């Protein structure tokens, strides 16, 4: 069987955690970077039957280099289908055919709401951020949303400055009351320090496992609300040697992932 690898970076572990959330047969919508690598890793290991859609309009891309962005021309040759982000968003996502969406953002709050629009006041922002792109519709309409973010106190906040992408809004039933489809919403947050899930009753985020290179106390310290911790909290399982090999040798040979995040 696999050997566990002690040699990994936090970002590589995030990718491995992302891959583990994917079930065989899932239809995923991903951007470039970590989600693309996570999905590719799942496809190469336990989920060969999953389908990867890129927001830019590409189904089952076969890139021969690490894409520089979601619309990199290297994603086109060899793909199963290439059209438009409109096709992805409207005819696959809005029509209810996406199982998993991967999202990132600058802030996430305890209900999994994500902010990628602005820090401070919307009309007079301290910091203007990219905005929604595909994030808001993915967060509204994908069955399961996985959030990948660097852990930091100013990023894991009690309430985001602006809800670009609705998580559970302000608690149980709020999504449905707001008009969103039932059985959708974030299922996990994967950070540089731990893996979080949402309480099925309260819809509040809690710590499921801390990454082996950090501690529960450190995670709590880097979270800006009173973080709940699973009674069964444990270290996140290590990546396998095979997973690390696949990432480094085949899925991200240019090490772009590590370059970007450091």
């Amino acid at each position, binding site marked *: 069987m696999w050997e566990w690898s002690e040699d990994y970076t936090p970002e590589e572990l995030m990718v491995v955690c992302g891959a583990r959330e994917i079930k065989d047969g899932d239809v995923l919508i991903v951007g470039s970077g970590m989600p693309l690598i996570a999905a590719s890793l799942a496809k190469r290991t336990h989920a060969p039957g999953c389908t990867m859609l890129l927001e830019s309009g590409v189904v089952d891309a076969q890139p021969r280099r690490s894409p520089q962005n979601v*619309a990199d021309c290297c994603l*086109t040759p060899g793909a199963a289908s290439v059209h*438009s*982000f*409109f096709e992805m968003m*409207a005819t696959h996502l809005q029509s209810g055919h996406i199982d998993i969406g991967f999202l990132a953002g600058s802030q996430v709050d305890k209900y999994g709401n994500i902010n990628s629009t602005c820090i401070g006041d919307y009309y007079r922002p301290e910091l*203007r*951020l990219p*905005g929604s792109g595909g994030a808001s519709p993915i967060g*509204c309409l994908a069955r399961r949303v996985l959030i990948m973010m660097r852990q930091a106190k100013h990023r894991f906040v009690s309430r985001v400055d602006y809800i670009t992408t609705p998580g559970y809004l302000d608690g149980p039933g709020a999504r449905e009351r707001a008009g969103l489809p039932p059985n959708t919403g974030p299922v996990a947050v994967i950070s540089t320090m731990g893996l979080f899930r949402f309480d099925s009753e309260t819809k509040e985020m809690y710590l499921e496992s801390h990454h082996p290179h950090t501690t529960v106390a450190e995670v709590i310290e880097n979270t800006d609300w009173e973080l709940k911790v699973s009674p069964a909290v444990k270290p996140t399982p290590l990546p396998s040697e095979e997973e690390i090999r696949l990432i480094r040798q085949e899925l991200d040979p240019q090490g772009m992932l590590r370059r970007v995040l450091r």
Partner: protein
Amino acid sequence: MNKLMNMDEAITRFVHSGDMVYLGGYGCRCVSSASHEIIRQGLRGLTLVRCSLSDETDWLIGAGCVSRLLTSIVSLGVGMGLGAAFRRAMEQGIPNKVEMEDYTNLSLPMMLMAGSLGIPCIPVKEMWGSDLLKFTSFLGKDKFKIISCPFTSQSLMMVPAINPDVAIIHVQQADAEGNAQVWGMEGDCELGAKASGKVIVTAERIISREAIGRDPNRTIMPGFRVDAVVEEPWGSHPLAVTGFYDIDQEFRLMYREASETIEGFEGFMNEWVYDVRDRPGYVAHYQEKYGIERLEGLKAAPYFSPSVNYGY
């Protein structure tokens, strides 16, 4: 009808200060060259419609051409983040304040599609619960409307159609009548062009009407809906065009860094926009500065499609 003209004439005739302008491209086939000409002509007060903006929007904002932005995301991509000129305009009003209406990669193309279909509005199923509904900009109460669905009685969100004054799209090939063909990622070019009153097609190469007819499924815009055709090799640089050239990330990062200061932005603009007359001048300057090898190195490697039979 032969609609071939140079970029100068196309912009002069079909884009005017105050217009709502749709810009095509999504990662590739960007309207870089047309944007430079807009800057050179000093147009002002444009409302840009751009689903996923790229470098050209940052140039246009920094050069003071833009008053309003109807968009869904403003990142220049991984490793680049937000454009510096965009941020100066939004955060400090330099060179002028830019109003921005935030939508998403679902609602904005749906709105262009409604425009292309000639209908005044269209339902979308997203944005519920988000602050996109709470904060509006220049569209005010017309950003969206919530009605009761006449079939299901549930709440239905309607977004308005967009019909820009003019669309500019960059394609792989077109004929002199304007029949425009693309392959690779399509972006929302067809929706944007069909929603707009006037259409400028810029193309990597001009081919014959007969050559268009050899593969008519690749035509995204028929010539009768096109007003101007410009032959513009390297028209998307530093962004890519499938089958022609790759992204020039080094050049983009150079701009990204230069534009951090107003002086740097102006230096870039002088060198690459104002001091060259047109795209051939730009390409000549590039070659002179960086050598022909670097330009050649961007050219696409072969990955050819099979031929299909249209016979009967």
